[in-house]
């Protein structure tokens, strides 16, 4: 196992040194955002200082001001709504399943995509403290929750110099599939 990179928000140029596949533990404040929050921020602006910020693609379960479960949602749904965040100084996106080639290029020289284990919602919640909320009218899943992290275990999915673990896996999966098909016929 590679050495774990321990990072704290607000993030700076230290994210540029990370490589796809590196294990990371992230601490500090993150903001949850899904489809509706992205649409709202694109229309009305980001309601806080986004410099060095990390966005978490997540719709948590919150009860009595406490985070009960907060695993990642599928990041690809936000592919076309991510550029404005990176332009505003956001340094890290957190989610599951990876993002597309356009986002990979947007991250180049600026930030990273960090993968968290889909479904590991209680593990995530056990490393979280709720600090605030924006857009509560969007509902529990779609609101922007302000969350303080304590060493969330992540892996670099897409780095700041074009490395993309998901794309590497996709390419080898396609090759394996072609071999499988040719073996069939």
């Amino acid at each position, binding site marked *: 196992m590679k050495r774990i990179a321990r990072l704290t928000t607000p993030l700076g140029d230290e994210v540029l040194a990370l490589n796809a596949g590196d294990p990371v533990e992230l601490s500090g404040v993150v903001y949850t955002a899904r489809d509706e929050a992205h649409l709202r921020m694109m229309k009305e602006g980001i309601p806080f200082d986004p410099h060095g910020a990390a966005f978490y693609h997540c719709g948590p*379960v919150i009860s009595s001001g406490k985070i009960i479960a907060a695993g990642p949602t599928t990041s690809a749904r936000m592919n076309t709504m991510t550029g404005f965040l990176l332009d505003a100084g956001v340094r890290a996106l957190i989610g599951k399943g990876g993002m597309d080639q356009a986002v990979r290029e947007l991250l180049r020289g600026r930030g990273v995509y960090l993968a968290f284990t889909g479904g590991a919602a*209680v593990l995530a919640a056990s490393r979280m403290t709720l600090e605030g909320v924006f857009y509560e009218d969007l509902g529990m899943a779609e609101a922007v929750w302000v969350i303080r992290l304590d060493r969330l275990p992540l892996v670099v999915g897409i780095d700041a110099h074009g490395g993309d673990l998901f794309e590497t896996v996709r390419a080898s999966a396609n090759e*394996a599939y072609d071999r499988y098909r040719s073996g069939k016929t």
Partner: protein
Amino acid sequence: MHFPYPFPVGRTDDIFEPVAKAAELALKEAAINLPPDVKRALEGAAGRESNPVARGEYVNILRNIALAEELQVPLCQDTGVPIFYLTIPPDIPLTTVIYDAISEGVRRATKSVPLRPNVVDPLNRHNTGDNTGVGMPIVHVRPGERFTLTVLPKGAGAENSSRVAMLLPAHVYGIEGFVVETMLHAEGKPCPPVVIGLGIGGTFDHAPALAKEALLLPIDEMNDFEQKICDSVNKIGIGPMGLGGDITALAVKVKTASCHTASLPVAVNVQCWANRHAAVEVKRE
């Protein structure tokens, strides 16, 4: 667990409260505790995995399962949409009271567990806030010896990766390729290592129902047909969360139904590693 109803059933309303309680309990159990066969399959996969990134994913998954049990909270924030399978004995009248009671159980569970309110109108996307709606919860009923409620809460990541095809009847050999291709396209989106429900036969609408119900079968045993498809899926190396690895599917489970001689409906219902389901019996007083 015991939720008594008076026998003989006088007013059908007498059945309301026991059924509502059973539905609430089944949802709670499913959301928090994974079935033992699913846990065994995940532990087995963790032990067999050779990819270091994938091994890290299993550490998170197994730690998460243990934490959910310890804290008695839902193991995933996507607590799904509620799908119920009922068996109803001859002395229980199947009326709207039973459907209303299940909906009430869903509302109560949404507050008490708590479950994330996931259910919306399909067009205006308005969220009802209580996980019920038009045609939701989904309730399947069949006759049985005992009165049982089984719930299968289904999350969206895996459901969105599912597919149905009307294959040529001469292409039975193409079923396996369709499953492999489904996972090639799904990549990490359904939260692998997945469980694959495969429905074969019936009609266009029945095959997906078979595929979903197949997810209730024990996943720590496969017949030769299921094992061969599972092995082929695992050759493409998607791995846990699409980060690469030896195991993409924990199991393939098949349910079949007879079909038209000119048809071969095939449905793949993809399920995330959290193959949640729970059964509760409603017992006679």
